[in-house]
């Protein structure tokens, strides 16, 4: 039987072409990658200003390709958009109030110019500076490629920017902000807050919830996180290679989770608080500069869990996790 197989194989082999050699990948120089560049429209830039009557709680959506973006809340029931040295744009009213006829939903988008089709017109505003004045109760929803962004005194913001720093102030109804390459700074704001950066730092101070269940979620890959005077009772802060600092008092019923893989965790808290701290670390260290009572301590090579109480320890829970970073709890000096 075997010999029959061998004979058959020999016969087939005579008719079967040999498999071609596998080509090897030649060394190809990498294509240079740069930050996404907005399409340029030479000779088509101009200063444009448009206004439209809007409800106080108007929703505004747009996209910005490049420029400095400044959005400010004002007391008028009107939306004003001004682009300096930018593409011409229009304001489309997607929805109006049946009572007043004012806009409740607005979309700012470039207008078509001669020779452009809808496909190559794009949907993003651009300009050296783009300024917007919107009612205080406005909700903003926008994305951007390369834009330095500052938003002040509006109700709610949801934004995603590929490159550029973001500064948000006096946002009263919640924030969802993503900056892939850039820092994120949030101050004096309230509501549910989610801040996400890939390579930038995240700073939040004077931020508080609107409702008890509002969550403050902060994440960055390689940046640092600093949280100061935070009123949220649920906080999740996570950095991978950056450090993490929390400064302020713990609140009753608070659940705080701080995690970093390689950075340090530093907590600056008043010593008269009441919280249970659970610190888990692999190859780092843990020390407390305020009086704490160690409840359990499981110290083994490569993995330690220390559960300690600040005060009676009954009012909140703090979880601190790091792989190789240092965990430190320090005293926050009371301010006069």
């Amino acid at each position, binding site marked *: *039987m*075997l*010999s*029959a*197989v*061998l*004979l058959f*194989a*020999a016969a*087939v*082999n005579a008719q079967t072409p040999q*498999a071609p050699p*596998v*080509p090897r*990948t*030649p*060394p*190809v*120089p*990498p*294509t*240079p*990658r*740069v*930050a*996404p560049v907005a399409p340029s429209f030479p000779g088509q830039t101009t200063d444009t200003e448009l206004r439209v009557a809007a409800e106080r709680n108007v929703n505004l959506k747009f*996209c910005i*390709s490049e420029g400095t973006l400044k959005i400010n809340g004002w007391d008028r029931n009107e939306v004003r958009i001004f682009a300096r040295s930018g593409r011409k744009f229009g304001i489309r009213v997607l929805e109006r109030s049946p009572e007043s006829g004012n806009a409740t939903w607005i979309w700012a988008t470039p207008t078509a110019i001669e020779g452009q089709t809808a496909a190559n017109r794009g949907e*993003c505003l651009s300009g050296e500076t783009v300024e917007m004045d919107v009612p205080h109760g406005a909700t903003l929803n926008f*994305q951007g*490629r390369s834009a330095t962004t500052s938003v002040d005194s509006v109700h709610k913001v949801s934004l*995603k920017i*590929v490159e550029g720093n973001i500064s948000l102030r006096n946002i009263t109804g919640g924030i969802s902000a*993503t900056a*892939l*390459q850039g820092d994120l700074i949030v101050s004096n704001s309230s509501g549910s807050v989610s801040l996400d950066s*890939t*390579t930038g730092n995240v700073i939040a101070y004077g931020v508080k919830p609107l409702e008890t269940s509002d969550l403050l979620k902060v*994440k960055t*890959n*390689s940046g640092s996180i600093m949280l100061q005077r935070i009123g949220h009772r649920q906080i999740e802060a*996570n950095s*991978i*290679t950056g450090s993490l600092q929390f400064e302020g008092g713990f609140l009753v019923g608070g659940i705080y989770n701080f995690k970093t*893989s*390689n950075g340090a965790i530093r907590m600056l808290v008043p010593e008269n608080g009441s919280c249970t701290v659970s610190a*888990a*670390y*692999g*190859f780092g260290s843990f020390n407390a500069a305020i009086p704490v009572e160690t409840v359990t301590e*499981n110290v*083994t*090579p*490569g*993995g330690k*869990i220390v559960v300690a109480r600040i005060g009676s320890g009954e009012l909140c829970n703090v979880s601190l*996790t*790091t*792989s*190789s970073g240092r965990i430190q709890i320090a005293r926050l000096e009371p301010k006069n």
Partner: protein
Amino acid sequence: MSRNCLDIGTIQAFLDGETRGDETAAISGHISTCDACAMMLAEADEETSFVMAAVESDVNTLVPTQRLWSRINDAIEEERTKVSFWHRAYAGLTSLMAGPSLATAAVVLVLFGFFAFIFIPGGGLDAPTNQTAAVPQQTAAPFNNPSQAVAPIQNETPTSSEIAEAQPDAMPPAAAQPKAEPVRAMQASYRPDRATRSAGGDFRPVNALYVPGEDSYLNTIETLKASYDSQKDRVLSPSSRVAFERDLAVVENSIKQMREVVRKNPNNQAARQVLYSSYQDKIDLLNSVGQKEELLASLQ
């Protein structure tokens, strides 16, 4: 500058994507801790960007892009892994038969076997008839129910389903030879699967002792890693790539360390907690590339 600083050749190879996975991780790890090398990398990156911007049009017209080569190689690799064991065995056999001396020997062997089959007493064509009844009953029993190993003898009028099951075994020995093929087919289908896993960069150690839940993390990471490999060239700029690889190296180092600890002492809850946390970091990290691509795509 420390004594272990990288030379410019290594840095250039790193930028060009010519380093292996472990080298890349090592270089990223070193760069994250060495300012001098980070500076040198940034300078080399700038120079490369400057030069490539100048020659980009020429390069793009002369050679395919890196992504195209990657796709071609992936497709070839996939085709190779799809080839079963028997195909490879067949290919090896046919290459052996290419030599005229071996082919001649095979012909002689066949003739010898043929004559032996005809003339040797007891090895004739009518010998298997008595064995046919025994073979199917013995071989069929393990596939059905061991407790009924002798039952088919009593049941001389089997039902249609039993006939269907018994048919392959009821063939005479000459035709019964392919009976073993289902078993071979199972082996053949298993090996390419294993080959695919190793080619896909499965980093799980053989016979590793997983802590509960670890496997699901690994599966997720494996899926995301495959996705990242296909996205990284078009999503990450060189500087972002360096930062990303550095972060990934840090997390992987953390996983490695904590895994060692957990393997030594599986009851170390702290180490397990940190290990899970590190796995989650890696998932978040890999996921961030997909999110970035999604955002960039929405801005097209």
